[in-house]
């Protein structure tokens, strides 16, 4: 094993993005004989797959795949942002709201968390989609060109789903902020909104950050469902390759690698965020 420094490190971050110590730890983690053998084995399998499997379809579908990838990314990002904006009031209502707000919020979260996303997606797409054309007012409105497409329904379903799960997370996070912090804010004469903005929300976010990271990966894993309502995301492109060329494994494997990379990126981003805003005990 004298040539070991030449082994490529798929997991190594670019120098400069992380402090030096973790890099050295990572290096020591990889430099174990059994790991080097496993990495070599994995690279061997990868080269074998790259040379012997059928990849000739890639150039023909590259443009479509890029569009699909972009659509997956923005659906994920937009639904997470919008969903989280809904989740804050949902969590707040459950943690501290009056009963006439807390009960609907809890019901919403229970329903979203208790039924499959696929069912919600189909209810929204087929249900609303069949309902809207019956109203001339909607059909003649400015929004109709958008409402005839599938993506608004996909975005709505994904947003509501994320809001439901995150609302539950935020409920716990709001509750976990010690009462003394809020009392201190009140003693300073802060208004209720100022307390929320300056003390309550930031501390709740810090505590919820690791959970939100995990939930965002779960949300990413839910995005391919939108392909069932004719949104052409990266998954739909892979299905199309399968239907056009009858090549089964290659597109699916490539797709799995793409999702693995997105998941890795999300995990890295959230780890950096957690380091930037550590959960102060």
């Amino acid at each position, binding site marked *: 094993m004298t040539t070991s420094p030449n082994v490529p490190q798929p997991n190594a971050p670019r120098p400069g993005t992380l402090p030096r110590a973790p890099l050295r730890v990572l290096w020591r983690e990889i430099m174990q004989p059994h790991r080097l053998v496993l990495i070599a084995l994995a690279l061997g399998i990868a080269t074998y797959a790259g040379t012997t499997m059928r990849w000739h379809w890639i150039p023909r579908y590259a443009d479509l795949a890029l569009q699909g990838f972009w659509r997956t990314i923005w659906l994920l990002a937009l639904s997470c942002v919008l969903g989280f904006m809904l989740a804050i009031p949902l969590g707040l209502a459950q943690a501290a709201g009056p009963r006439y707000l807390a009960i609907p919020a809890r019901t919403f979260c229970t329903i979203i968390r208790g039924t*499959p996303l696929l069912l919600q997606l189909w209810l929204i797409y087929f249900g609303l989609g069949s309902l809207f054309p019956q109203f001339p007012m909607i059909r003649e409105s400015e929004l109709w060109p958008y409402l005839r497409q599938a993506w608004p329904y996909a975005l709505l379903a994904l947003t509501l789903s994320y809001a439901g799960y995150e609302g539950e997370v935020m409920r716990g996070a709001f509750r976990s902020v010690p009462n003394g912090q809020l009392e201190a804010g009140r003693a300073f004469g802060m208004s209720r909104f100022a307390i929320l903005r300056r003390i309550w929300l930031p501390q709740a976010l810090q505590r919820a950050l690791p959970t939100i990271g995990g939930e965002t990966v779960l949300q990413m894993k839910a995005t391919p469902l939108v392909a069932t309502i004719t949104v052409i995301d990266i998954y739909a492109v892979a299905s199309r390759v399968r239907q056009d060329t009858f090549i089964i494994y290659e597109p699916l494997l490539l797709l799995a690698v793409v999702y693995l990379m997105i998941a890795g990126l999300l995990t890295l981003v959230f780890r950096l965020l957690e380091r930037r805003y550590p959960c102060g005990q």
Partner: protein
Amino acid sequence: MLDWLYTLAPGLENTVALLSLHPPGWGGNLLRGAWASLQIAAGAFGVGLLLGTFGALGKLNGGPVTRDLLAVYTTVVRAVPELILILIIYYAGTDLLNQVLRALGQRPVEVSGVAAGIFVLGIVQGAYATEVLRGAIQAVDKGQIEAGRAYGMGPITLFRRVTFPAMLPLALPGLSNLWLIATKDTALLAIVGFSELTLETRQAAGSTRAYFTFFLAAGALYLTMTLISGRVFGWIEAHYRRGDPRPTRGRA
């Protein structure tokens, strides 16, 4: 009997007719789908528990290679969408099985939907169960395990008598969550064309055009399943926690 209700809400008679259990209505199909979903969820949960137990024990006690391979398994399965895993395992599993059968000189077979669903979702559940059980086993007091060893218990007896009962209450919240994920993930099998609740619902809705009626009815069925199983898991947890000291109030 329900006539007074129908006069109050004119659309109701229609809805009841659509949802009735006998052939012009589609209620029977929905219930059959729900039963199939439950069977797959239970099977997948069982397979997942089995895989998870071995995975957790391998991660905690296995050699370096076992641990690394298990890490790859849990990372990949938890990062790749279930839908894609289902397709890969479904196609690859059928292919492999038929190749083995061909090598043995048998005829290729068509894999049954239930078996494939249980197998696929079981592998996915196994990855999550590995992590849940690993965390729970790690949280068991070391002294108890050492005491068991001091009594001369073998590893199996030790697991059966000490580790397992001690870790169960710690693992139950995570396992209950996994069961809920299993019931909801059965809906994904609709995309591979297996007629569980979601696909039955879509067929019923598509042929009657009463989308809201059927999707809401299916939602109610799923919600019933999840709420009831949440309650059952609550009871089981209370049962296994009955020896715990009462939580003291007022301490942070």
